[in-house]
Structures are given as C-alpha cells and as structure tokens.
C-alpha cells in the first residue's frame, strides 16, 4: 500500500508545472484562431427509477464552443425489470445496461450565475444501447439510440459542470424517458 501511494505521489508530482508559461508573439496571435482542447468527463443520468454512470473523453473547440466526446454509460447495478414474454406471461429479469455513445454539444450565450461563467448547453448523445440479464443467455433488445439534452454549463474554476434535462429511451416501460444529466468535464490545457 505504501509503495503504491509513493509511486502514485511521484506520478502526480510529475504532472505539476513549476514555472509560468511565457507566450511568444506567434503563440499570442494563434490564440485567436481555432483551438481544440482535450476533455475528460464523468457524470450521471438519473431519474427516480434509474441511474447510469457516464464517462468519456473527447475534444472541445474554444472558438465555436463545440465539443464532442466518446462516452460509455452503464447502469452500475442489476435492476429488476418486467418484460412481456408472450400473452399472459411476464418475465421479471435482473438487467444491466450499457450505452456506447458519441456526445456532441454546443455552448451558447455566456452569462453569469453568482459570478460564475455560465452557458446554455445543447447536445445529443447518439449511441448503441445493449445489456444482459442474470441467469440466462437472453439479452435485452439492443439498438441505436438518440438522446438529446438541454441545460446549462457552469465553469467552476476549470471544471465545467453541466446540468441538463435529457431524453433517454432505454426501452423500459417502467422507467420514464426523462432524466437529469449531471456531468463534470475538464478541459485539459485550458
């Protein structure tokens, strides 16, 4: 444990810079041009019936404020679901679901909430939804899904917090399609 912590501390300390960045004229002029920043994000899609954890990485373009990320969302537990197997026969399975998706979003109209830089946020997560059940080789119906969302994005000292409403149809009649999206995104080299 101590060895692992020591190696981790060395790794973390290697990432910390010890000098101020000095910009050249060429670098200053390039600041007004298109600039892509790599992003990392971690979030959740939640309503009163269900929860997904969502994480991924991508890039954000600072001039147009357009971003794209490859994300993986998953339900971190087995949820009981009831599916009609045939007339008058319902199966109650324990189901896990996953969604590999491309998240494309745009930030609009900067404003301030309590001195925090805030934007309106519009986006869509398009991906492939799949899953499994416990105790069987049968699987839930898989397929492509398009999940638009809208909300706001707050810049909290370099960590961008997105709060949005998302439409997410995961093919379960017992779970509403409306979800609340909470996501933290870090823009690297911001």
């Amino acid at each position, binding site marked *: 444990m101590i060895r692992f*912590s020591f190696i981790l501390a060395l790794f973390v300390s290697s990432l*910390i810079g010890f000098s101020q960045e000095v910009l050249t004229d060429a670098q200053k002029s390039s600041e007004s041009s298109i600039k892509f920043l790599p992003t990392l994000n971690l979030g959740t899609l939640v309503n009163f019936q269900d929860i997904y954890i969502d994480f991924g990485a991508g890039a954000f373009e600072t001039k147009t404020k357009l971003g794209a990320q490859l994300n993986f969302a998953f339900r971190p537990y087995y949820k009981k679901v009831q599916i009609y*197997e045939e007339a*008058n*026969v319902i*199966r*109650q399975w324990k189901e896990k679901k996953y969604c590999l998706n491309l998240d494309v979003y745009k930030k609009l109209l900067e404003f301030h909430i309590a001195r925090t830089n805030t934007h309106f946020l519009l986006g869509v997560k398009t991906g492939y939804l799949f899953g499994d059940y416990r105790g069987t*080789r049968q699987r839930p119906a898989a397929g492509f899904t398009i999940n638009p969302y809208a909300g706001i994005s707050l810049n909290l000292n370099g960590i961008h917090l997105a709060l949005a409403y998302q439409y997410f149809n995961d093919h379960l009649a017992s779970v509403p399609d409306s979800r609340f999206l909470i996501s933290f995104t*870090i823009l*690297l080299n911001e």
Partner: protein
Amino acid sequence: MKIHPLIYILIAFSFLFTGCFSNDDECDPSRFCESTPIDSNWVNIDLTEQSTGVPIVLYNDNLEDNNVILRDTLYTSSISYYLPMEVVYTAEAYYRSGPNTIIAVDSRRLDQETFQNCGQTCYENNEITLDLVLID
C-alpha cells in the same frame, strides 16, 4: 503555482482504487481464520409471499442449460438450501397475478473467497441471496 484540477481528480481516484490492492504483509493474529476450504454454503431465496404458494425451480448454471436441482412450492417469504460451492445457481419463482403469470429470475455464483492473514490462506463464509421478490 497553479495546480490543474485533473491533479485533484487523480488524487481522489487514487483513494478509491487503493482498496483494490491487497496487502499480503498484513497480519492480525486475533482475526479468525478458517484455514480449510468450505465445500458447501447457504443459498438463500427471497420471494413475495402468496397465500396459494409460490412454485420455485432452482437450476445449476443458466436457465437454458436446464439442470434442475430442485422444485418446491413455498408458503413463506424466504428459504435457504445448503448447496455445493463454486457453482452458478439460478432460481425461478412463478407468481399468479390476475390472468398473468409473472416468472421472476435471479442468479448468482456461490464463490469461495479467500484472504491472507499472517501468511495463511483464510476461507470466507459468504452466503448468497437470490432475490425473486416482485417489483412493487
């Protein structure tokens, strides 16, 4: 010196993942150690009680393998069976609900888990519970 927020997140994750690394040097002589492997353990089944009884079927492995271990009709909300370890158990419960039959399914592997203490391999007594309780 400005520290990038990523550093804070890396540190936070390091605390989460330190639990994933076992420490073979640990030694607590007062800790109970079962040094012989356990060959069987309890498989508990929880279900929703119905006055007419709930038929259950217990299988080895998946339903499709159709390796039936036992069939029973239960008038209580739980029951336990003492069964061999290192096997996947799958249970079905058949409920009547008006004109419909609801078949609840759950499955778990009855695993033998071990840990090291003072250089000795200790076997843990982990039961499993198959949850066939109906959704409210």
